[in-house]
């Protein structure tokens, strides 16, 4: 149930972790409009699941699970159904972030070329999550996480090299 206390707690936690929403949205959507729609869908699902959040797990772990699940589901839809109604304004103002660093833009581009589960794994790795936490969030084993990261590292390295040689 949405009490003023948990509303306040939710707002505070979202404010502290807003970067997660932005980075997940940017990893799964190429254009601004889709990113904003996805960010809103993530927030709606976070709010819906918030009453069931148990503090035995870290808020960021819980948040990543929801954000990635929503992002992969969103990414896999053939047609986008924006969820604007009944809200008529954006949650996160994306214009404020300027991707002026070429390496960051390239990184997002190369992440965007990976398969959906690989995107989740590398995103969590870049966020400094340990293998154990990545395994907890994604549901794959630690050994599998290690194998995947090593493979993705190699792919990204090759992509950057190919880009430099162009």
């Amino acid at each position, binding site marked *: 149930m949405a009490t003023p206390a948990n509303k306040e707690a939710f707002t505070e936690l979202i404010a502290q972790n807003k970067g997660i929403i932005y980075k997940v949205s940017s990893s799964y959507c190429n254009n601004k409009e889709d990113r904003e729609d996805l960010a809103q869908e993530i927030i709606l699902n976070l709010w*819906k699941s918030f009453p069931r959040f148990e503090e035995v797990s870290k808020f960021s772990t819980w948040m990543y699970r929801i954000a990635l699940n929503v992002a992969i589901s969103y990414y896999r839809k053939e047609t986008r159904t924006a969820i604007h109604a009944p809200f008529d304004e954006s949650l996160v103002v994306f214009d404020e972030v300027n991707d002026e*660093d070429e390496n960051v833009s390239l990184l997002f581009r190369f992440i965007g070329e990976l398969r959906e589960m690989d995107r989740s794994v590398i995103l969590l790795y870049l966020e400094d999550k340990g293998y154990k936490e990545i395994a907890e969030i994604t549901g794959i084993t630690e050994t599998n996480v290690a194998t995947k990261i090593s493979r993705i590292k190699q792919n990204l390295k090759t992509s950057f090299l190919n880009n430099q040689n162009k």
Partner: protein
Amino acid sequence: MELDQLKAVWHTYDVKIQKALNLNVRFLEMVESQKVKSKLRPLFWGKAIETVLHTLVIALLLAFVLNHVSDVNYFASGLILLGFYGVAISNSISHVRIINRIDYSQEVVSIQKDLAALRSGNLNYAKMTILCIPTFLAYPPVISQAIKDLDLTYFSAFDIIAQSNGSWWLAQFSSSLVLIPLCAWMYTQLNQRNIHKPWVKDFIEKASGKRVSGALEFMNELDQLKRDAA
């Protein structure tokens, strides 16, 4: 560029995001004040209604079968239809269960697998249609006998068995003999494990769309992850 260097770039970027991103608190308050409805609710109700309708048909067929235990032709026809609706209801119930257990805060692999299973729902209908082909000939005798049993005088002239002079049973038996194993085999083949087979992929895409074959490929990828871990 090495990944460790990328990590450094990523962290610099992270700091910039935290400073620059503006959270629209007014929007957040609006989200909080709304009762957020799950997008899966309409699907849940659709599947629930489907389950109720299948239960109703199964009850009627059970009554028919029990009423014709001594008449092997009608009994067998009723059983064929019962088998078909048995598979149909198990599909509907399994979808209702999947929808009920979906919780986005659970592990990504298990939730995505459940969602892919739901997304491939159209395939179940295509598969059911295939499975249902041998049962097509079982409908007329069952319906015509049920009309007689219920003493619906308005339809009393509708007696397909009498009109075919008994040859209906022979046609039904011989076509069932050929079609049941063939259709049952196709039913077992049309799944994500066989999506690599061109005819399976082609059939699925034509019968239920590319979205379904995409979902099945994703399920295959997730299964591969589980197998690698084992």
